[in-house]
C-alpha cells in the first residue's frame, strides 16, 4: 500500500503542475450552472401568429388568453391562413392560431367550437410543448366560456375531470429532474476523459518504460491511476449537490451517505473503462476518439434527455451496459424520492457487475512486458 501512496503523491504533484486541476475543480460547477439553465424543457416566448376570421369578442378574448401567459408572444395578426403560413416558412412563427368564422356562434349555440393550430414541428420537443400549452389554454377558455352562456345545461352534465398529481416533483420542475442527472453526466465526462488520457500519456512521454522495469505490481499501478480521479469524482458530487441545493433548490430528500456509497461504486466503472482504453491505445489521440465514442453513447442513452422507456427495444437492451443510465436512475430515486438501499439494489448490482468486468479487463490488458 505504501507504493500506492507514492504513486498517488506523484499523480497529485503532476495534477498540481498542469491545468488539469483547474479543470477538475471548476468545470463541474460551470457546466452544471450552464447546462441546467440551457437544457430547459420549459419553453417561453413562443412566437404566435393569429388569423382571426371571426372578429368577435369571444375570439378576441381567446387571443388575449394566449397573450397573458408567459409561453406565447403575439408577433403578428394576419388576414389569411396563407399569409400566416409564410410566417411559419420563414421561421417567424412557432404557432399559428386560426379562429374560424362563426367561432362565437358555435360556442354559444353548440357549446363547443373548434380552432385550428398550426405548429412548426422542426423541433419536435418544442412543437409538442407548444401544442399542449395551446390546447390547455383553449380548453380552459372553453371551460370558463361555458358557465356564462350555458351554465344550466352544463350543470346537468356528468362531467369527469382528471386532475393529475405529480409525485416527487409536484410542480413538474424540470430542474429538479435534470440536475441530479447532469451532476453525474458531467462527472462521468471529466473523470473518464482524464483516466483515458493518463496511462497513454505515460506511454507517449516514455515514462511507462521506466515504471515497467521497477518491481511495482500491476494492481498497484492501476490503483495509483484510479484513486486520484475517484477522489475527484467525490469532489464533483459534493459541489454538484451544493449547487443543486443552493442554486436550483432541488429537494434532497434521500440519504446522502447512500448516494455517496453508490457513487463510490459507480466511479470505478467509467474509470475502469478509461484505463482499459488507455492501456490499449498508443497515442492520446487514439484514446480520446475511443473514449468519445463511448461517452456519446452513454450520455445519449442515459435517460437524461430522452426517457429510456421511449427508446426502441434494442436501445433499451444496450442500456443494460450503460453505467450512466444506472447511476442517473439511482441518483433520481435517492435524491428525489428518498429510495433506500433495498430499492436501488437492482441498479447497484448491475453497476457492481460492470465494475468488476471492466476493471478486470483493464488490469489484464495492461502489460508490463510486451510479446
Amino acid at each position, binding site marked *: 500500500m505504501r507504493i500506492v501512496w507514492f504513486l498517488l503523491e506523484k499523480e497529485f504533484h503532476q495534477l498540481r503542475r498542469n491545468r488539469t486541476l483547474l479543470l477538475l475543480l471548476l468545470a463541474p460547477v460551470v457546466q452544471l450552472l450552464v447546462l441546467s439553465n440551457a437544457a430547459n424543457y420549459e419553453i417561453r416566448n413562443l412566437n404566435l401568429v393569429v388569423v382571426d376570421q371571426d372578429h368577435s369578442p369571444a375570439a378576441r378574448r381567446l387571443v388575449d388568453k394566449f397573450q397573458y401567459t408567459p409561453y406565447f408572444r403575439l408577433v403578428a395578426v394576419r388576414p389569411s391562413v396563407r399569409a400566416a403560413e409564410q410566417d411559419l416558412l420563414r421561421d417567424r412563427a412557432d404557432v399559428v392560431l386560426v379562429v374560424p368564422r362563426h367561432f362565437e356562434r358555435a360556442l354559444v349555440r353548440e357549446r363547443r367550437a373548434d380552432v385550428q393550430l398550426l405548429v412548426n414541428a422542426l423541433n419536435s420537443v418544442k412543437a409538442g410543448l407548444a401544442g399542449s400549452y395551446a390546447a390547455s389554454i383553449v380548453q380552459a377558455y372553453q371551460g370558463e366560456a361555458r358557465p356564462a352562456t350555458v351554465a344550466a345545461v352544463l350543470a346537468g352534465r356528468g362531467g369527469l375531470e382528471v386532475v393529475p398529481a405529480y409525485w416527487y416533483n409536484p410542480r413538474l420542475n424540470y430542474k429538479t429532474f435534470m440536475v441530479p442527472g447532469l451532476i453525474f453526466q458531467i462527472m462521468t465526462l471529466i473523470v473518464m476523459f482524464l483516466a483515458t488520457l493518463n496511462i497513454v500519456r505515460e506511454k507517449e*512521454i516514455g515514462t511507462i518504460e521506466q515504471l515497467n522495469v521497477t518491481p511495482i505490481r500491476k494492481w498497484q499501478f492501476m490503483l495509483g491511476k484510479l484513486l486520484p480521479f475517484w477522489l475527484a469524482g467525490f469532489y464533483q458530487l459534493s459541489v454538484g449537490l451544493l449547487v443543486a441545493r443552493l442554486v436550483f433548490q432541488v429537494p434532497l430528500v434521500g440519504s446522502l451517505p447512500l448516494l455517496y456509497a453508490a457513487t463510490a461504486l459507480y466511479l470505478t466503472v467509467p474509470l475502469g473503462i478509461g484505463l482499459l482504453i488507455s492501456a490499449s491505445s498508443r497515442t492520446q489521440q487514439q484514446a480520446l476518439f475511443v473514449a468519445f465514442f463511448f461517452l456519446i453513447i452513454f450520455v445519449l442513452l442515459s435517460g437524461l434527455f430522452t426517457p429510456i422507456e421511449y427508446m426502441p427495444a434494442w436501445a433499451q437492451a444496450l442500456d443494460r451496459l450503460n453505467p450512466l443510465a444506472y447511476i442517473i436512475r439511482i441518483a433520481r430515486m435517492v435524491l428525489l424520492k428518498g429510495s433506500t438501499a433495498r430499492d436501488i439494489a437492482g441498479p447497484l448490482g448491475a453497476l457492481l457487475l460492470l465494475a468488476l468486468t471492466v476493471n478486470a479487463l483493464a488490469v489484464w490488458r495492461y502489460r508490463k512486458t*510486451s510479446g
Partner: protein
Amino acid sequence: MPAAMFAIDLQHLSKSYGPVQAVQDVSLRVPPGELFGLIGPDGAGKTTLFRIMATLLLPDAGTAAVAGHDTRGGMRAIREVVGYMPGRFSLYPDLTVAENLDFFAALFRTTVRANYELIRDIYEPLAPFRDRRAGALSGGMKQKLALCCALIHKPEVLLLDEPTTGVDAVSRQEFWQVLGQLKARGITIMVSTPYMDEAARCERVALLQEGQVLRVDTPAALQAAYPVPLYAVRATGSLYPLLQSLRAYPATRTVYAFGEEAHLSLLPAATAAATTGTAEADLLGYLARAGHAQVQLRGLTPTIEDTFMELLGARPAATAPTAR
C-alpha cells in the same frame, strides 16, 4: 540459486517486428563486473536487445538471463536488481529533479539517502537544480538525472541504451568517467553507443549489424584484427573527387570517408610491394595525374571503426558502405 556465472547471458535470441528481423540469433555472455559495449549503427538491434534484457519485451526465440534470472520466469527478480536507462529520456518532465529521484527510490522501497553514496558524484552537479522540473534541464543534466534514477536501488546490472547520444562532448567525457567508477564498485554495465571512440572505453564490445553479432572482442583485439596496412589520404579541395579517384585506382582494396580524410587499404599484391615503398609512390603518382594537389599519405593505426567497416565489407549480405 547458484551464483550466476554470467551477469548477462543471452542465448540465440531472435525477435522480429512483423517482417522486420530486429535481432537474429544473438548470443552474448557478460561476466559480473564487466563494462560491455554494444556497438552498431541505428537499426542494428541494440534497443531491442536492451528491451529484452530489461524484461519489457519477450524474445521470439532463445533465452536471456540477467543476474542469474531468466527474463521469462524471473521478471520480478530481475526488476529488483536491474537499472535501466532507455535511449529516450523517460523521467517525468513535470516533476522536479528531487521528486523524480524520490519517486523512483520509493518504487524500489528505498530512499535517496540510503543509497546516496552511490549516486553522489553524479548527483552533486545536479543538486543546485533539485527543484527545477526535469523537463527544463539541459541534455547532459537529464542524462545524469536518468542515471541517478537507474542507480537509486543499487542495481547489480546497469543497462544503458545510448546514454550519450545527443549529449555534449564534455558531458560525454564525464559520463564515461562515472561509468568507470561504477564498474569499480562491481556493477555490471551493458552500454550501447553509436560512437566508435566510446567503444574503446569498454572492456569488451560486440559489433552489431542488422540484428546480428559480427564480432565480440576487446577494443585492442578489434583494432589489432585489422588485416592489412591502412592509410589516411587527404588532398586540397573537397573529399568527394578524391574518394572517386581512389575508388577507381586498380590496387584499392577498400576506401571510405573518415572525417575529412579517406581511409584506404590496398590489395595484397600492392601491400607486399608497399614494404619497398613503390606502392605509395605509385599511388601518389596516380593521384597527381588525376589532378589532386597537395596529396598527403600516411600510415594509420586502425581504430575500432575501421575494423567495423572491414567486418561490414566482409559480409556478403551487408550493404557495405564504402563511403559515408
